[in-house]
Structures are given as C-alpha cells and as structure tokens.
C-alpha cells in the first residue's frame, strides 16, 4: 500500500503544533470539582431498579433470571419469539454456558467463529438475533457496557434485528463515570468498547421516535439477580 503521508503531513503537523505552542495562556490548570458526579450513588438493589427504568423508557425489554435459570430464560424467549437462529460467541464465558444448556430443536445456535468476510451477506440477511454478555451496567441513565473482541465480535450487538444481552445485577455501576473508573477504562481500552442504552432509534423525521433504524429493532436484557 502506498502511504498517503507526504511532506504536507509533517509540514502541517509542525505548523499546527507550532502555532498552538506559540499562543500564551499557560497558567495553573483549573482543578475539576467532581462532587456532582460523586453524589450520584445508590444501593445495589436500587441501581438495578434505576437501570431498568432508564432503559425501559427507551424501549429496552427485560427478562428476569437467576444465575441458574438464565440459559433457560434465553431459550424460552427465542422459541417464543420464533427466532430461526441465534448468533453467539462460542468462546465467551456466557456463550459457553448458553451452548452447554442448549437442547436441540427450535431456535438454532449459530457460532460467530470465523472472520466476518466469510459470511457478511448471511450476517446481514439471515441472522435473527445476536447474544452477548456485558461487562457492566450504568444505573443513573440506564445502559449496558460491552467490550466486543475476539470472543464476542463487534457486529453481534449491531447487525441482527434482535440483540439479547446478559447482565449481572452485581456489575451495575452508579454512573458511566464511576464505571469508567472501576473498569480502569481511563488507563487502557480494548480496540472497541461500547455503551448501549436501547434499541437503535431516530427522531429525524419530524421529531417522531422510530425504533430500529439501522441497528437492532429490539434489545432484550436478561437481568440476572445475583445480589443475594
């Protein structure tokens, strides 16, 4: 590949940084007061309620489960919704547990086990739903935190019309800010990390909300109550 960098690149970079450095205004850095973020705190049980309320307000659907029952809950939903297949990550923790409990018949489990190029068209046209885990949730506004990667590819939560996400109540943080701190995302991040609060939506036509414009039309959260 021919590198598009030319002399213009270094010239532009040097010139821009030079101009920025030449500007005065160096002084003591103002110290941010984060009290407004710190006072957003709730007990664990309330965090679960808040997250659910926030996400339901933007059309997310919830299924209640326990650490023991969640694979059956996912299965019952898929069969009930008449899903032909469910895309999952065969090497992820949640994916392995799901596959182990999946009985034959009804909705077929479909592993995302090859590069997208090998089945891009099928992914866009022939997959009914995608199943992913989460690395946490956000109570204040409602929201799921995902770290797509080799075990759970990025497009699983985006391309299929239904996204089913597994969330453990114990991983729900107060705010996005406190989640970033707790997960160490301020220091290092994987190639992709994500917050999702609901199914894809738009209000671009006369401010009227419409769901499922590009991404999933439905977001189903399987909320595992592991607080006890």
């Amino acid at each position, binding site marked *: 590949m021919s590198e598009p960098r030319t002399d213009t690149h270094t010239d532009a970079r040097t010139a821009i940084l030079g101009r920025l450095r030449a500007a005065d205004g160096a002084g003591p850095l103002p110290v941010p007061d984060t009290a407004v973020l710190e006072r957003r705190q709730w007990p664990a049980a309330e965090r679960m309620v808040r997250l659910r309320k926030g996400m339901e307000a933007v059309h997310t659907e919830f299924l209640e489960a326990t650490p023991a029952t969640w694979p059956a809950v996912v299965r019952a939903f898929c069969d009930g919704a008449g899903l032909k297949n469910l895309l999952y990550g065969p090497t992820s923790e949640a994916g392995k547990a799901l596959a182990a409990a999946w009985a034959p018949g009804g909705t077929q489990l479909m592993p995302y086990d090859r590069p997208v190029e090998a089945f891009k068209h099928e992914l866009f046209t022939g997959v009914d739903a995608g199943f992913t885990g989460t690395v946490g949730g956000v109570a204040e506004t409602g929201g799921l935190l995902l770290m797509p990667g080799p075990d759970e590819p990025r497009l699983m939560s985006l391309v299929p019309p239904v996204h089913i996400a597994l969330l453990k109540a114990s991983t729900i943080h107060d*705010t996005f800010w406190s989640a970033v701190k707790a997960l160490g995302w301020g220091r290092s991040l994987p190639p992709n990390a994500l917050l999702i609060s609901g199914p894809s*939506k738009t209000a671009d036509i006369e401010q009227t909300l419409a769901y499922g414009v590009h991404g999933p039309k439905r977001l189903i959260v399987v909320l595992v109550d592991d607080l006890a």
Partner: protein
Amino acid sequence: MHAEHEVLFRDSAAKALLDPQLRANFRRAMDGLITKRRNQFPDPRDLQDLRDLSTTIRSRSLLGLPELLEQFEVNCTKNGIKVHWAETCEQANELILSILRAKNAKTLVKGKSMVSEEMHLNAFLEANGIEALESDLGEYIIQLDGETPSHIIMPAIHKNKDQIARQFSQKIKDAKYTEDVDELTAMARRVLRQKFLDADAGLSGVNFAVAETGTLCLVENEGNGRMSTHVPPLHIAVMGLEKVVATLEDVAPLYAILTRSATGQAVSTYFNMITGPRGEGEKDGPQEVHLVILDNGRSRIYADPQLRATLRCIRCGACMNHCPVYTRVGGHAYEAVYPGPIGKILTPQMEGVGVRHDLIHGSSLCGACGEVCPVEIPIPEILVRLRREATHDDEGSNVAGRGTGRTATEDWAWRLWAGVLKRPALYRLAAWFATRFGKALPAGAPLIKNWTRSRTKPVPARRSLSERMRAEGGKHV
C-alpha cells in the same frame, strides 16, 4: 471594504421569515427540544455544577492542547490508528482521497460529521469519482434533495413528514407513498443496510478524542455510526483539533451534559469507543483506521485568550434550540456550515469577520445562548468583540479579516458625528436644525432608510434638552 459576493444574512433571513411552513417546522421542533432539555435538569444546582465541571474540563484540555494532541497521536499510533494532520480543508480532502485511492475504494458510507460538512467532502469526492453516501437518517434525507444541514444535531429539522414522504416516494426505488414514520424509516433502513454491506470504506466524525488511551468516542442513536466504523474494511475519522481531552474520565461528564443539552436525552443509544482497528484474533472491525486532524483556522482562534472559549464547544446545538433568531429563520438562512449562535461566532472567525459582517450583527444579544451553553461559552460577549474586530485593525489582534468590515459611509458618518460633537457651536446649530426640520426628512432618505426599513421614523422633540435647560435657567449647559 466589504468583500465582493458577500452573503447577506439580512436578506436570507428576511426571505425565510416569509415561509410559514418553515417557521412552523422550526417552532414546533425547537419548543420540543427546549422542553426535553429542561426536563433533564430538574435540579438547578446539579445543572450548574455539571456546567462548571464541563467548562473546567474543556478549558483545561485547551490549556494543554499541544501536549494532549501529541500524546493522543502517540497513543493512536501505538494502537494502530494512522494519524494525519491538515491545515486546511483542501489538504484534508486530498488526504482522504489518497487514503481511499490507496485501498482502491469507490464507495464511502458516512456517519454524521460536521467537520466533513466544513470540508465539503461529499462534493469533493463525487468530483473525484467516489460515491459518498450519508447514512444518518437526517443527513440521508437532505442528501437526497442536495441540501445542507439546517441544524448541527438534527440536519433535516426544516422538513416535515409530508415533504419527506413525497421525497422518498419520488427518489427511492420501488418506494410507495406513505406518511407513516415507521414505514419511512424502514425504507431508509432497507436502502442503507445494503450500502453498509457493500461499502469499501466508512467515514465518521469524532465527538471526543482521548489522549491517555488514543480513543475516538462517537455519540449516536441510530447505529449508523457503528455501521460506518465497524462494517467496511477501512474507517476514516475526521476531527477538529480542539476535540481532545486527557482521559475517558474527563469525557464522562461531557457526554452526560452533551446528550441532555442536545436532544434532552439522559444518554444516547450508543456511545462507541474506538481504540484501534481489528485487533489480534478479532473477527470483525475495519482492517485500517485513519484519523485526519483538521485545523482550518482553529489554531488562530486558539491564539486569542478571549476567543479561545469558542473552541470549548462540544456541538450540542442547545444555543440554536434556544435562539429567538434561529427559531424564526431556521438554519439555512445563515448560509454557513454552522448555523445559530455558535455559528455566528465560529463562521466569521473561520471565514473572516469582514466577509460575514452582518452575521455578527444578526443577534439581539438576548443572552439565551450563553445561558444554556453547557460549557459556558460567552457567545454574546464574543459577538460584541467580533463586531469591534470587523471594523478595527487593533494592535495584537489576529482575527481573520479584522478591519475589513468597515465601510466608507459608516466611516464618514462617524467622522461627521465626532466633528460636530467636538464643536459646541456647530453642535447647537445641528441640534437646532434637527429639532426644527428633522420631522421633514423623508423616511426613505439614504442612511435613514436603513433604520426605517423595519421601524417607524423617530420624531425629534421640538426643542433639545439643553435648550430647555437653558430656558429654565439651568447651569453648565
């Protein structure tokens, strides 16, 4: 002197005011947005604290901007993101073209990016044989009609459902006429999904750039941003150089205040953090990610301690939603990439205060914009400052086009005024004439016409104040 081919806000605003459909579309939309924003901030103390925090974070990021940009570049490069710098829009366009050509890319699917609008990237790429398709629903709607965005967050806000229904039925293949919003949305979904699947490359803007981790943050509701950045094999991001902050912890409060200020949402559907191309063992994501950092006048704005506040902007659009002028004339009347109050201070600083002189004056200085700005940009104060810059070439100023908004007529009028005021006898004579014969001056006379076009002609008192004072035995007059 005023530049030739000057675009007059005054004229386009007057035209827009006569369009009842446009005014109704904007009024309804802005009222809705104002209410939704207000509902997101029930506690005034929380709002003020969050504004203060966001302002501090943005100011602090700007203070250390050159260092943050360098750190950001180092970390992006480490993550496999190729970083490019452009001083001008032309350079940025050329860079993007060469990146696309190197990959032999013919089709580009775009997530919403105001910087790409600033660059007029679509027209440039089309001229070079590359299809650039907008995928944000609002951007898609206006691209079908060859229009530009009328709002930075909701680009198609000037159109109503009927207009879009007609447009879709005429321009989308096999589309039937419907005014059902869900069906219209489904039509766009069908067309655009195929485009995402086929596109050779995707382009996006950047809402926040994180120096510590080399991360690009994208805020969106539709998922078209994720589609554009994750599905095609090549992702190109463009950003203004002011977007960088130190850490993701800094981003959290900015993100919180952005969605609430912009659309009255507590949180957007997606907050996408991109820290590199497809990694080791990953099965999807682009093989290459490029980032173009654009200056286009920003480093010049940065050099001025007062005007630098302009660069704190996080592009929420709250200033336009609350602006009495914007609400009445809509976004297109500004004939600028960035409309509304933020556009009124940004556009003249980028294009020159002389060229867009009347944009700076097209404000009642009511202060609503400054009051709702989540990062407390003193837009009214900056407007006043730019009004001076437009007519003065002050020492130490580096404002683009400073002094070029001065006109001979205005100059002459002020000189005359000063001359009269400096000479008491002449002043008394002029006052005598004005009080006795001012009434007889026709409303259509030159200069007076500028005032009387939209106001009634003032009738001077029969005797001036000093005359009356003198008559009543007052001293020192």
